């Protein structure tokens, strides 16, 4: 499953990051590393970009960038 497929309020865990080198490193440097758990905070009013909380910080990225991130959803109801 891709990060871009996740819905508002869902939680998940990062499985891997693809995409071109530049984007990939940037995503990794912002803490979206393998195994990290995140929570989809919200999508912007125009449905792009999206915001997630990971490692205690809020990160925003475009939906077409989130396509590069493979994730697995976690069953959890609270944020």
């Amino acid at each position, binding site marked *: 499953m891709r990060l871009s497929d996740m819905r508002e309020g869902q939680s998940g865990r990062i499985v891997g990051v693809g995409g071109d080198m530049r984007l990939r490193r940037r995503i990794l440097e912002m803490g979206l590393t393998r195994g990290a758990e995140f929570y989809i905070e919200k999508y912007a009013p125009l449905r792009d970009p999206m915001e997630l909380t990971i490692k205690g910080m809020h990160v925003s*990225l475009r939906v077409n960038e989130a396509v590069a991130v493979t994730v697995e959803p976690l069953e959890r109801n609270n944020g």
Partner: protein
Amino acid sequence: MDSRQIRIALTGNPNSGKTTIFNHLTGTRQKVGNWPGVTVEKKEGDIEKFGCQLKIVDLPGTYSLTPFSIEEIVARDYILEDRPDVVIDIIDASNLERSLYLANQLRELDCKVIFALNMADLARSRGYKIDGEKLSELLGVPVVFTVGNKKEGLDELLKTAVEYAESGTGIPESRKVRYSKDIEKAISEVREELESRIGPDFPYNRRWTAVKLLEDDTIIKQRLEKLLGTDSAQVLEKAQQLRDKLADLFHEEPEIVMTDERYGFIAGILKEVVTTSSRRRVDISRNIDLVLTNRFLGFPIFIFFIWAMFQITFTVGAYPMAWLDAGISALSSGVDALLPPGVFESFLLEGVIAGVGSVIIFLPNIVLLFFCIALFEDTGYMARAAFLMDRIMHLIGLHGKSFIPMLMGFGCNVPAIMATRALESRKDRILTVLITPFMSCSARLPVYIVLAGTFFAAYAGTVIFLLYLSGVVVAIVTGRLFRVILLKGEDAPFVMELPPYRLPMLKSLLIHMWDRSKMFLKKMGGVILVGSIIIWVLSAYPKAIDYSVDYGARMDQVHAEYAEKIASAPAAEARKLEEERTARIADLRRAKRIEHAEKSYLGRIGRFVSPVFEPIGMDWRGSVAILTGFVAKEVVVSTMGVLYAAEGDAESDALHRALRNSGMTSLAALSMMVFVLLYLPCLATVAVINRETGTRWMILSVVYTTAIAWLAAFFIYQGGRLLMA
């Protein structure tokens, strides 16, 4: 006293409170400039403490030292090449994991690093407890706790820095970052290959260089080629071989594996030094965001903030502007009264005071605008603005953050272009700078008011609105065009942090605002002064003009004629005659002024270039007005005032009448307005474009805008004539 100089560099993630600490450490003794060759702000401050001269350099805030953005390159190069005595890494204690990524890269660089665990109070309130001693022991780095906005721990930080700088040892070998076995093996192989080819004066840490080569760091590869010449080939080849091998082994590029391992290392450290006492409590910042970036409320609130910014800038700014205006007028009349009429007086009044005055007058606007921008930045709202607007801006191939500078362009292009500094990617910055001049700035409004008011009286409002809209359309088209042709390649990643909202500190807001305003005054003041003097010289010279009519003699003649008539007329008629005389003298003066303008250098240039403007419906007077508009676009109006021989105030009805009688058609007026909207930005804007993007882009901007302006005006004028014929 020991006057030893110690150089201290401050690094840290964006939003780690680095700037606050820098401001507190250096106070007003800071100098703001640019890093050589790039438009990243460089801030330095000299202070004296513990009997040492401390030079503190504020490096750009970065998340990493991977050389992808200019900021990262600048920061890394300073540490690599300028070798500061100590590097202080400001770490957001409530965000330790991410901060330690940069911190570890600094440790690998083999410089003397101190960790300043900043905002520890905030971390504590969030339920994190950090064992500073343990962290210091595990990483081999001095650790100091600070609370930047309360000035806590800053003295201790400096003291530690000075002591550390004077003591010999750096990070002990046993405390360095270790990678997994295969990678460590590759590192030592590259290192051996490297060491067999370098001398003892090799400037960089060897292990670090080997790591960078394995990461395929282009900048380090180039430096190595420069340092070693042909010898570098074997080293690079070795590194490439090992890269391929590792990629095979891990099914992943080595740099990704190494990033992963660094985070793994950090996770290990965190486990030992951080104790989390409770689950996260209420996150105020998050609650604010529930409203400010809400699906329904987000945009209305954003629009309100922008509206408020414009209100403050232009409505509140109008008061100090009026005072400045009064001050400049008082100065002019003072000079007028003090100096005898002559060349020098005219130079001072029309060249220097009028020219510089026309820029100084915008200072209140600019100061207020920068204050608002600093407020947006320091509170953290700027990132939300980018979050909201990114979808729309992305359509033109721009980053959400480009919206604010473009919007500011409607006020004045100069601060707008300076505001592009908030953009991280150079491409985005250049593109935004190039399209901002199409935002119709407030200086162009007087031109529209005069022309549209004269020729489109009933529809003036609509015409002006359409002009603004056309500017936006041209900007969008230009953006898309340049993105495809000139600035192609993938966009910089948007990925960014939405930092927690913070209460801004007045001191930091004021320092921000003042720095930028000062830059505006210094640079723009100089350029405008020179420009105004040139225009003045061109319009005032040659002094000896070969008039077609001897105006002096004519005037004497009129005087004599009327003196006789008045003397012999009855009192009632004498007043009428006197009025008649004044009118005739004024006519002659005006005729003389027009002829002077026509025969001055400026007029000659106008006549010379007028064939260019003829196809777009402008005579030589229009051409001259447009040329003088280069100094500042509102000057177009005052030049028209002179050339079309209106009396008194340029914006009065007289100019309307004179324009209507001059033979200018409404089509020509429309064409001229479009030209003024689009053609080359004013002198101050050109100067700031040159500063922010370099000469090449400045020239492109000047040529492109003027060409577009001419073409648009041409189609309107010629097309309109065809339609009407």
